[in-house]
């Protein structure tokens, strides 16, 4: 069972994962053009390192790791503006609007970009790819407890920005 040796090529990886990798890159960068470039770069790096992929069943987390490292390399010297302070990341709010409001993609993008990368990555992996806490911890090379803590804060921030009753009224243009 599994991918035959003859098909274990970078072309197969592209066909199987390019859409997923682009989605991850898009949520990380918040920019379609940056996401395209990052996705291409990730596959180029994968082509160079293909010999390191011993377990083909672990190709997805391997590719996600390559892309994240490429992203971190890019942002290393950049000052990320408009990011919220870690202290301001709140606990989950109880005042969730009912029924749940439609989430505007642009609103989601802005909310994600407000998060530091250390918090953005786990919430993306959690929601976008249903990574387990263990997988997220391995991906980021941090303890599982750290993953859970960051995830809780990041989810709380997203909910406050996207789903809370106050923000929904604000987004609708009402003055509060």
């Amino acid at each position, binding site marked *: 069972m599994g991918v035959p040796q003859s098909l274990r090529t*970078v072309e197969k990886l*592209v066909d199987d994962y*390019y859409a997923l990798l*682009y989605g991850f890159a898009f949520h990380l960068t918040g920019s379609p053009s940056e996401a395209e470039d990052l996705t291409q770069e990730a596959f180029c790096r994968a082509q160079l390192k293909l010999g390191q992929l011993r377990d083909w069943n672990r190709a997805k987390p391997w590719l996600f790791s390559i892309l994240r490292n490429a992203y971190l390399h890019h942002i290393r010297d950049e000052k990320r503006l408009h990011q919220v302070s870690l202290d301001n990341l709140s606990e989950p709010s109880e005042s969730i609007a009912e029924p*749940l409001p439609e989430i505007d993609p642009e609103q*989601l993008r802005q909310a994600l970009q407000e998060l530091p990368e250390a918090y953005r990555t786990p919430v993306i992996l959690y929601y976008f790819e249903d990574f387990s806490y263990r997988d997220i911890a391995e991906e980021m090379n941090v303890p599982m407890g750290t993953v859970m803590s960051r*995830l809780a804060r990041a989810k709380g921030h997203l909910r406050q920005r996207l789903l809370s009753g106050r923000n929904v009224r604000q987004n609708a243009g009402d003055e509060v």
Partner: protein
Amino acid sequence: MQAMKCDTARVLIEFSRPGELESGEAGLLDAHLAACAHCRNFADQQRRMDTHVREAFRKVAVPPQLRREIFSRLGRQRRRARTRLLIGVAACLLALLTAWGLSIYLGRSKPDLSRLVHDRYVEKTASSAEKVENWFAIRYGRTITAPRDFDYNLLVHRDLADFQGKQVPMLLFVRAGEEARVYVLSRNQFDLADLHSTSGSLGYKVEVRRVPDNLRCVYVILYSGSSLKPFLDERKHIPSSDSAAVSVSPSTG
């Protein structure tokens, strides 16, 4: 077993994805939710929110040209890698060739001019037929019979020379601007039957002489001037048989 408190339950609800909780904890949480409507509503709300946010995350429009661009870039990377490899190989070859060329260039020896004079002196003082024969024997391992009637004070050069594609012993005699080249031809190299002297042209004549006591060789003498007489040692002059064809009989070879 102690019942779970709401504070604990709410924390676990936050992280209660299938397979994430230990079976003991999952059981306690299920029991608490069955008994606590407040936490049950909270759990339901969390699940709905997670589902809602997850759906928003997955609404990503993938650019239609992305796959093609990825393959194009991968192809360019492979071509660059091949080019770098070729350049690397070429650079190595160039380095090897340069090293080889340098070794030849630096290994050149300076000409020894004093030896040049010495060698010429030795050559000039090989002023006898016997010394010439000895020289060919030592230098080339070849046994020849040098002409006895020539004046070896006129000898300026002796060595193997190309004669119509074959290397043959050659003696060069010079006098008053005229020269005589004596080629010693062997039956092993040439068909010597019925060779004739000729009048030649362009101021040169060709005389063919047999070698005394050796029917396997002949002398072919190319000379300028009116005759060979100036090159001969009068004391040892041997009449030539140039008026007759030189015949080398296979039965006497």
